[in-house]
């Protein structure tokens, strides 16, 4: 059963294209026939709604159905059932994917092409003119840190460079929607930071981003909304704050010498100490008492914010709670 935190309902049909979400996936299902008989269910029932302009994280352990769901959206895999829309149009309709850019997990390119030739190929497939391709290629290669590599054969590119090229290729044609499958894969820490900044820049420019990633910290840092898949189903979805904020608890950071004031000590929990700084949680209704006591004792209150779990903790807890997480979910054999 999915834990749904936000109140957004799937709008379904009857929505004009201008009001439609950037990406709408409803009741996606994919099962594969097997030579040994029976069927293997890769995706059981997944619904995802990505609002326009949002940066939406898609999370899940290996085999949870993330990539298969994205492949169904992008026409790479035929769905067994479900509805897939991009900017209000069925994703398989001619022209629907023209406004979408996609970075596959570990993008592969024809290695006998140069970076410039690859950009020309994908630019033409994106419907760009020769002039547009030349302009955008130079700008995008520069933006992803591949300036001056236009004439380099892709067989000479490292994995990280191919990843950067994949990002540049996905951005050709100024797509309104971007689907990124593990965009930081293969990148060094600087590259990962650059990609994260790029995603935020794109979001600020109004581009919708659907980000599938294993890097929970990355998703937590930049996503507005997340959908968590497990065993081919939606395990949780909602705004990142609503998912991670711990109800009834506030996190307080304070600086001071020695132990916390005696009046504060029995109230606080989960105390973490780093030098003169202490971080602890307090029940919401006792915050005023604690802050006043700290002030009176000469402590400096650095921050008072709603207590928030890390996405990693949330994710691990959610998977631990799922009783079906050991064995693959299977439909009846036929």
């Amino acid at each position: 059963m999915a834990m749904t935190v936000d109140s957004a309902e799937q709008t379904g049909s009857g929505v004009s294209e201008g009001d439609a979400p950037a990406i709408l996936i409803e009741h996606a299902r994919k099962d594969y026939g097997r030579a040994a008989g029976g069927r293997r269910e890769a995706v059981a029932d997944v619904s995802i709604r990505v609002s326009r302009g949002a940066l939406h994280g898609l999370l899940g352990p290996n085999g949870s159905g993330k990539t298969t769901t994205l492949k169904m959206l992008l026409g790479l895999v035929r769905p067994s059932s479900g509805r897939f829309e991009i900017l209000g149009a069925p994703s398989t309709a001619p022209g629907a994917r023209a406004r979408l850019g996609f970075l596959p997990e570990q993008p592969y390119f024809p290695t006998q092409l140069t970076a410039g030739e690859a950009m020309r190929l994908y630019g033409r497939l994106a419907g760009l003119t020769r002039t547009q391709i030349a302009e955008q290629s130079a700008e995008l290669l520069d933006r992803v840190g591949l300036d001056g590599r236009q004439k380099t054969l892709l067989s000479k590119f490292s994995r990280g460079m191919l990843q950067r090229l994949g990002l540049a290729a996905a951005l050709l044609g100024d797509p309104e929607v971007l689907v990124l499958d593990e965009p930081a894969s293969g990148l060094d820490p600087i590259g990962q930071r650059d990609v994260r900044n790029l995603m935020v820049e794109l979001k600020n420019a109004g581009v919708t981003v659907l980000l599938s990633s294993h890097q929970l910290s990355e998703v937590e840092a930049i996503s507005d909304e997340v959908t968590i898949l497990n065993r081919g189903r939606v395990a949780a979805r909602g705004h990142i704050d609503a998912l991670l904020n711990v109800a009834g608890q506030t996190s307080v950071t304070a600086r001071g010498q020695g132990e916390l004031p005696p009046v504060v000590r029995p109230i606080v929990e989960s105390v973490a100490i780093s030098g003169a700084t202490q971080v602890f949680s307090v029940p919401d209704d006792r915050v005023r008492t604690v802050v006043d006591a700290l002030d009176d004792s000469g402590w400096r209150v650095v921050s008072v914010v709603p207590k928030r779990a890390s996405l990693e903790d949330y994710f691990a807890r959610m998977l631990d709670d799922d009783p079906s997480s050991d064995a693959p979910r299977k439909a009846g054999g036929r």
Partner: protein
Amino acid sequence: MRKVIAIAGAVVADAVRRKVVWVVAVFAALLAVAVPALPSYGVGVMAPVYREVSIALMWSAALAVGLALAATRIPVEVERRTVFNVISRDVRRWQYVLGSWLGMFAVLGVMVAAFPVATIGIGAFVYGEVMWRLFEGALGVWLEIGVIMSVAVALSCEFGSITSVVGALAFAFIGHAVVGLLKLPPDARPPWYWPTLDVFNVINPVAHGAGFGLVYGLSMIAAFVAWVAIFMIISSLVFGRRDL
């Protein structure tokens, strides 16, 4: 059509970088030089025999290269996932299949054109005769191997490379065995509606006659278009149903 041509262009660029065309061109020149040295020439070197052997070698080399390209291109692209970057865009699967075939057909065309250039040059040197008709033979070979490549592409949309090669070879064999299968006299032509590759067999008019006329050339092209259209439709249907 722009996307089909873009995909075809990438196939050609890939083949050029892999030096497929240049290796085959050198191979063609070596064969052309070797033809007059064959043992059968000891009993009397004749230009028509030279032309016949040249066309046969051209066909064999084109078949080998054509099948190597056509039976491997799509399986390798799927296996290496390079196809994701194409299909995930606003590209229909039929455009991908047709573009891939068209690119390989263009590469084959360059290779088949190189062959008569080499053989005509050697022929002019050895026999003092410029055998322009070998270009007619090259056209027949190009079109026929193009059809066989479309069969290999169709098979490779579902099966692996080896199965596709074997299937395409079987098609080529059966396509030339129709006369025997129908128990027709050796020089007879099967009915026009009967599927056969014999329409592309122009060795006799090119090697021993005055070449084939314009009308026959057009009928060859019509047969080529019909065959390729059939197999491209099959390829698109099969590939369109496939999970990548």
